[in-house]
């Protein structure tokens, strides 16, 4: 009887521990690190904006971003630009995977985060929060302020 009790207790503690570990998962070790976030100001009537950034996988496992959301926008998607038949075209990505130790750059003419239908027009200095949901269940929220891009100081990565 006592044994059964102890075993049940152990199982309960184990379950509790693993769920506890899940919620502290993101503070135990960093997975994705977001840097150089740039959200250029767009015309107030524009129904789309864009976010560029670097995403570094600091962990030792592949991480996959399965969705992105923002309170400031109706929808957020990840797109990849490419040239096809002499035309620039975009493709929506269902997910974005980053290998362990790898950093990917989301930049003009390539991968970018598309911010669709702002709830109100955003101007220079306005704060935007983006929540990246990983396939692991982890959620990472980052923020940036809308910037007015003066082309002469907009740094591109050119490959």
């Amino acid at each position, binding site marked *: 009887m006592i044994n059964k009790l102890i075993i049940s207790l152990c199982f309960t503690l184990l379950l509790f521990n693993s769920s506890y570990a899940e919620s502290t998962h993101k503070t135990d070790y960093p997975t994705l690190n977001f840097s150089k976030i740039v959200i250029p100001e767009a015309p107030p009537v524009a129904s789309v904006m*864009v976010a560029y950034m670097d995403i570094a996988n600091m962990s030792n496992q592949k991480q996959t971003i399965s969705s992105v959301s923002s309170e400031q926008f109706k929808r957020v998607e990840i797109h990849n630009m490419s040239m096809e038949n*002499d*035309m*620039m075209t975009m493709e929506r990505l269902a997910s974005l995977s980053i290998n362990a130790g790898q950093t990917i750059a989301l930049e003009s*003419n390539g991968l970018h985060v598309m911010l669709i239908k702002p709830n109100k027009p955003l101007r220079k200095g306005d704060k935007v929060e983006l929540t990246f949901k990983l396939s692991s269940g982890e959620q990472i929220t980052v923020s940036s302020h809308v910037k007015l891009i003066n*082309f002469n100081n907009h740094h591109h990565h050119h490959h």
Partner: protein
Amino acid sequence: MTDNKQATDRKNKPFLLVAIAAISILFGIWVSTLSVKSTATVPKSLEATLLERSKPVTSFSLVDHDNNEFNLQSLKGNWSFLFFGFTNCPDVCPITLQVMRSVWKTPALQKLIETNTKMIFVSVDPDRDKPEHLKSYVQYYNPKFVGVTGKQDQIDTLTSQLGILYGFDDPNENGDYNVSHSGQIILIDPQANMRAVFSPPFNPQSISKDFLAIQKFVKDN
């Protein structure tokens, strides 16, 4: 009488020949200096592609952002930078318009801009880009920029002449659709001839420099 005439003719003939030869030589030298001058002013080291032969734009019928007719006549009398895109474009179109905004601030271009140069953004997506919306969009970048759109077949009439391609993707579950399009900027001269093509990635300094060189070359020839 005849003898005298023949004698006179025989005497004058060598002078005449020398005169003709001299004039021909002088004329030849003058013509050759002309052609040396023309080839010397063809702008070298352009990043833009200057067409070997300018191509006259032919008739088309669109509307500008004030709902006024925008046609071949609208291209005459000024230099025009033409860029084709759509306002639901997150990356390429805003970047290009930002570049052109910088070009429009270039000190060396101010005189040309004030007198006879226009920046025209043609939306190939008239379903979503109505003139009023287009006006707010382009004027955000510069109040002098012009938005143009119209019926799809007339847009095609213009794009096909300039080597610009575009296409519509299927709408997704939200009704959103992407428009693929060429990224070049086309330069049209005041006689409505296609003169040059600027290809991405764009740089405001090189666009300004090339435009100055091209318009000078066209003016001098």
